[in-house]
């Protein structure tokens, strides 16, 4: 983590150059070679090279969660020669021979880093159950409380002494399946820090609000309490608690003390400045998109830059109070166009931003929802739930970008080859960031349970 602090101050030195770079970034996300034809010194390349070869750099995962089940035919699995394809057309990408849907033009220029897995094949078509299934790797199976992916990964890759939480969840919509967003049997210490509780999506028009919505609750003392007052309170509390703890040895009282101590450290640390997005250049903020999801992706980059091993950003919708925005049973094409108008710039800018900072090689970006959508278009120009053959995407660190994995039939109704289960996907994600998917954790039923189902077959073809 200290390496990045050093790099940041280097960047400060070149602040003018940095602004130039941001401008270039915003105007068209210049393709494969990134920064082109500038008069800047090559400091950004130096920075990138330095970070990439830093072996002490920990790996991270950014999960882009598409709530509601995103349509694969209108994003990555185009079917231009079949009626199921619908009105949206395919476009070329930066990788010759790879075509994706016209809804993702900016990402199309980053395809060398991207692997769409088109042969996902799962069995759950219910929102609650499928959300749980994809996010924990297991079907809900009472009484076991499976932990969500973020808790699992941060449990492996996180640093317990870090000033920042190891798992941050940005704008999750949890009401339908809260257990799918929780630490399960790994315990509350692996809970995510939640920023911008989802379900209160601000529409793209509500510009002013997006900054507010990403505030961290509870990290700052309340406005009507001064810093010195907080200090006094904490001193008084420490004394008082010590008395109780002395005659009540054991885990409950002991953990209370250590949790509070760490919480105070977190409140006071400079690492918490990660959440202050006003630090960033406005042009860059524009490139991500001035909405909750776009700024959420920017925040994810900042957190990963400071060593947070798992950050998830949920795209719940683009209209106010949408929860399953991708659940396009009606008016699918208009809805997808609106959703991708937010998704595309944010995702593409995220990848490029990570790449330019030398972080892409050690950051795996995962894109998925709980299932896909029917290839056949229904009577309301919509698509319904479809788990038989759908798409998830991996990009960045640990995977060989620039290829498709798996294929569906011409009509999109079945997987043609290389079916991928949830367990397979989870195992692949683990391996991409150096986590052993067969590692066992003790569950709440006294039985050790592996991170991924023992039957999992990781997609070794796409792993670096």
């Amino acid at each position, binding site marked *: 983590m200290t390496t990045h602090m050093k790099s940041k101050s280097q960047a400060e030195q070149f602040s003018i150059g940095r602004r130039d770079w941001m401008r270039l970034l915003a105007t068209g996300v210049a393709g494969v070679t990134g920064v082109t034809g500038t008069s800047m010194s090559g400091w950004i390349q130096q920075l990138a090279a330095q970070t990439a070869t830093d072996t002490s750099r920990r790996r991270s995962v950014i999960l882009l969660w598409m709530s509601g089940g995103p349509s694969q035919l209108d994003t990555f699995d185009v079917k231009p020669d079949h009626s199921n394809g619908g009105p949206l057309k395919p476009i070329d990408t930066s990788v010759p021979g790879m075509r994706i849907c016209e809804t993702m033009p900016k990402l199309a220029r980053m395809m060398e880093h991207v692997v769409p897995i088109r042969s996902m094949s799962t069995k759950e078509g*219910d929102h*609650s159950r499928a959300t*749980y299934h994809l996010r924990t790797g297991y079907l*809900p199976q*009472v*009484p076991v*409380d499976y932990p969500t992916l973020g808790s699992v990964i941060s449990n492996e890759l996180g640093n317990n002494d870090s000033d920042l*939480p190891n798992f941050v969840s940005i704008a999750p919509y*949890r*009401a*339908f*399946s809260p*257990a*799918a967003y*929780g630490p*399960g049997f790994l*315990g*509350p*210490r692996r*809970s995510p*820090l939640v920023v911008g*509780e989802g*379900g209160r999506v601000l529409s793209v028009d509500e510009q002013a609000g997006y900054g507010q919505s990403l505030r961290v*609750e*509870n*990290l*700052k*003392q*309340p406005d*009507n309490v*001064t810093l*010195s*007052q907080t200090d*006094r*309170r904490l001193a*008084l*509390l420490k*004394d*008082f*608690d010590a008395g*109780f*703890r002395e*005659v*009540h*040895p*054991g*885990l*409950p*009282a002991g*953990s*209370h003390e250590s*949790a*509070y101590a760490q*919480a*105070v450290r*977190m*409140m006071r640390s400079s690492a918490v400045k990660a959440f202050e997005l006003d630090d960033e250049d406005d042009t860059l903020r524009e490139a991500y998109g001035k909405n909750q999801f776009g700024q959420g992706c920017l925040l994810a980059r900042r957190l990963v830059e400071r060593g947070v091993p798992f950050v998830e950003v949920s795209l719940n919708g683009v209209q106010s109070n949408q*929860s399953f925005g991708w659940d396009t049973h009606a008016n699918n094409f208009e809805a997808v166009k609106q959703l991708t108008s937010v998704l595309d710039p944010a995702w593409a800018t995220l990848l490029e931003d990570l790449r330019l900072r030398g972080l892409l090689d050690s950051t795996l970006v995962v894109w998925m929802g709980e299932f896909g959508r029917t290839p056949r278009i229904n009577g309301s120009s919509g698509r319904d739930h479809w788990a038989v053959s759908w798409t998830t995407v991996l990009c960045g660190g640990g995977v060989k970008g620039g290829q498709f994995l798996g294929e569906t039939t011409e009509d999109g109704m079945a997987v043609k080859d290389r079916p991928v289960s949830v367990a397979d996907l989870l195992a692949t994600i683990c391996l991409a960031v150096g986590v052993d998917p067969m590692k066992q954790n003790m569950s*709440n039923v*006294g039985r050790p349970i592996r991170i991924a189902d023992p039957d999992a077959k990781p997609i070794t073809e796409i792993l670096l």
Partner: protein
Amino acid sequence: MKSLSRILFVLCVIFPPPFCADQVTAQDNVQELADRIDELIARKWAENNVVPASASDDSEYLGRVWLDIAGKIPTAAEAQDFLDDTAIDKRRRVVDELLDGPNYVVNWSNVWRRVLIPEADSDFNIRYMLPGFEGWLRQQLDENKSYDDFVREILTTPVSGVNPYQNQNGLTPFAYYQSKEIKPENLAASTSRMFLGIRIECAQCHDHPFDTWKRKDFWGYATFFAAMQRQQGGNGFLGQLQELFNRQTLTVPDTNEVVNATYLTGVSPQIPSGRTARLTLADWVTSGDNPYFARTAANRIWGHFFGIGIVDPVDDFSESNPPSHPELLDLLAKELVEHDFDLKFLMRAITASRTYQLTSSVRSEDNVAEPLLFSRMAVKGMTAEQLYDSIAQAVGTHEAFDTTLQASFAVTGRSQFVEQFSDSRSGPTERQTSVLQALAMMNGGMITSATDLESSRTLAGIIAYPGFDTAQRIEALFLATLHRRPRPDELDRFVKYVESTEAEKTTQRALGDVFWVLLNSSEFSLNH
């Protein structure tokens, strides 16, 4: 020799000869059982050379029974009344009052709901059905339905003709079946754990690795639930449910083996014609002769009050997990049967025992022994609902935890709090606070508004009370949060703090600080 005489001395303190008794009550069934409990527990102490902790003081006891029975801390007024009461039988009396009060109903419906339908945490469809289920639970608790009848009703609730899409506004335990998807294997696994204390689900797919249960045993038991089927509805929707009479066999999945409905004791009953298999099963499960039923129930209640069961985990009776006090467990089970499965009777006896009334604090010369010997009351964490309700009470808000709001889509302060503070991983004696919980307590809205003069009823009330001096105000804050009065050294320290004004620190703000400290203390958030 020296340690033996020490133990005898302690035993005399705990079971005083009549002339030095301090809490003499009329001999009654409750006291008889309480004494027997103490005898059996003390025997093990002697065998293990363990010196038990001393008795709890009134404040410890009061907080403990309130939390264990009513699910929250007592009010300041109730605390004050209890502490100042000189009646010899006050401890018994407060338990009786709590058991007859509305908080018992609310708290225990939370407890049973969580144990019976844990799926609600991960499945929204189930949460939607909860209000009817919880309404039914409250009704049972209100009527103090005997435990065997309670379980019988769950096991035999009608399913024929029930439309699974209809929100069950009626008060019925049907959601229990819905949450198990009405599948025989799920119902077998759940009822076995819940009511018989046996984790038989491992044997669903293969012979149990650690215990004697075979795959055949699992499916034989599951057969009792196999008669419930769905008819095909139209348009691919699920049709109504139907229960077939005289369905007594099942084909084990992926095999050709046919099994008969078989109890876990290995007996395959003949199911009378015209009766469903579930009715026959209910007779066997809830019988006083059933070797598992009463012991599981008694153990669960013990585990609730002590934080650790005599068999622990409480739903895992097996050869590799024997009871720590087998004779005691048998006694509790027998007494439960003899008192018509009245759980409140057990609760009264347990709380009347000296073992339950031991302090949770450790004196330096104490032998901090194995928790399974119950020589000291364990410190237990609170559930999220208990913590929320306790905070709400202490700060004077009206918004107690309201389970009828389960079906709401909204993310409320209440639901967020519960998510933040829920912990299913560990038993109550191993509860850990997380950093995010600490942040929520320190900086979160609930505590903030509580300690802010403008918005806290409790604080405002205490400050406005005419004639109170600083010491009395601090005492009021202690009573409201920790249901005790401050010790002299504590009072001294806090009075000094409040009265030494510096800069912007006014007396009023300082009192807010004290309130904040008490609410954030481990003493407040732990059941000890």
